[in-house]
């Protein structure tokens, strides 16, 4: 049985849903990125959008929907995952104090010293699993289990631009000031999203991010 399901959402969006972990295969996220790359290279799609456990591909010509659903089902197992070469980014973070208003509370709640909290957050590679919520807002998977906690029950109205945050199993960086319910650990000066530049978003789906502590 295939571990991927495919359906048409509306008239021209093909949703590919990875329903369970494939046996003896590479991680499902890697497979979804390989699928995105393969679909992008076909030239048949306006956009290919990864999400939590799916990829949605927007067809230029809706008449090709059936053919593509069959092609995806057939090709899923044979995707060359190794061909995906992600870009690596180092993001400098000022942790705590005025830069991360939830830093001390989170350290207390997780029973960690400030040093341990920083080490845990900055010692792993995160992968851009998908981008949503705001232009350039990347959901970074790979947050250590010891740092996972639910979102705030009440979002705050103004999360400062560049805020480094955690919630559930993700870390993220707010590209612009916005309301938000994630816990704020620090801040970066790096520009995440610039609508005037051709590539617009610094982070692209599949990229690898490493946080680096910066002291002022």
């Amino acid at each position: 049985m295939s571990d991927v399901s495919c359906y048409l959402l509306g008239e021209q969006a093909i949703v590919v849903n990875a329903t369970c972990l494939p046996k003896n295969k590479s991680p499902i996220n890697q497979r979804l990125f390989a699928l995105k790359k393969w679909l992008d290279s076909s030239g048949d799609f306006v956009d290919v959008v990864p999400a939590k456990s799916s990829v949605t591909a927007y067809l230029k010509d809706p008449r090709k929907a059936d053919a593509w659903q069959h092609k995806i089902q057939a090709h899923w197992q044979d995707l060359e995952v190794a061909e995906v070469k992600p870009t690596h980014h180092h993001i400098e973070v000022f942790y705590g104090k005025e830069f991360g208003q939830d830093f001390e509370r989170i350290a207390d709640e997780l029973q960690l010293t400030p040093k341990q909290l920083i080490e845990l957050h900055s010692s792993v590679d995160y992968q851009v699993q998908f981008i949503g919520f705001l232009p350039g807002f990347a959901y970074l998977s790979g947050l250590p289990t010891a740092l996972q906690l639910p979102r705030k029950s009440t979002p705050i109205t103004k999360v400062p631009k560049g805020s480094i945050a955690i919630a559930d199993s993700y870390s993220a960086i707010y590209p612009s000031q916005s309301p938000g319910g994630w816990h704020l650990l620090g801040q970066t000066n790096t520009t995440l999203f610039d609508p005037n530049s051709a590539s617009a978003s610094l982070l692209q789906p599949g990229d690898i991010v490493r946080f680096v502590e910066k002291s002022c």
Partner: protein
Amino acid sequence: MLEVIKSGPLSTIQDIGRQGLRHLGVSQAGVIDPVALKLANTLLSNNDDTAAIEVTIGLCEFLFHAPTNFVIAGADLNAALNDEAVYPCWRYSAKAGDKLTFKQNRDGLRAYLVVEGGFTNIDKLLGSYSTDLMAGFGGINGRALKQGDKLSYTPSTAKSSVGGLQPSYEKLIHFIPGPHLEIISNQTLSVLNDTIWKVNPSSNRMGIRLSGHSSLVHAHNIATQAVHPGVIQLPPSGEPIILLNDCQTTGGYPIIGSIIRADMRHLSQLGAGDCIHLKSTSVTDAAKESHRVQAHLNQLRLALKNKEQ
């Protein structure tokens, strides 16, 4: 130059929207009624990507500082040029000093104002002139028009008046059933089809919120997936949201349907308190409707070409 004397509740610069950037979290934005924009641009021999002012509700006023031809398409918001009525989907000429006013009409919500050649002092951003109000870019600094804004255009000589037939706006809106219907209940589809849905006042360019039936309350979430304008989400409140052009690119509410592309234009005219019917249809019939709309536009192009040769 077109000067904004009164901006009204919400007037924004919009074109067909941003395409191909959902994977970076960038919304489509753009006109909610693409047919109105295409009709207006066709009547002015403009390029398809020429931007319009999307006027919401009305209550606004513009002053022409140079001669041009213009078209208003979409809803009839009781527009007048120097107190003389201006009708949707007709081409008019304005002289320097002419004043264009929009009053208010209960029959529709949005009208599209386009000038010949388009506005020349706005730049494309990420492939589009559209204002992204949420992200704060595009159009004029990512915001709605305000009093004193000046939009430049290249002056043009007066053309004869000519009109196109604008297909009527309907309150019966077709959708293709969505992937998560059954997780709510096996009655969801018939509830969607059989209910008179009322448009809530909290509706905006991000989405139309509906109320009408209490049986759809649920406690399900789905793994966040890509969404787009036309998708019908069902939050736990049981009150469906039809996503519109400024919607986010991903969402975690169950998806119970998608409005067909040909019927998206009807959504542009729905305001608080309006009642609509939803009717499920097939992908095949949706494609037929899209062709019908395209054929209408093609006919207008052909007729104009013959007339103006």
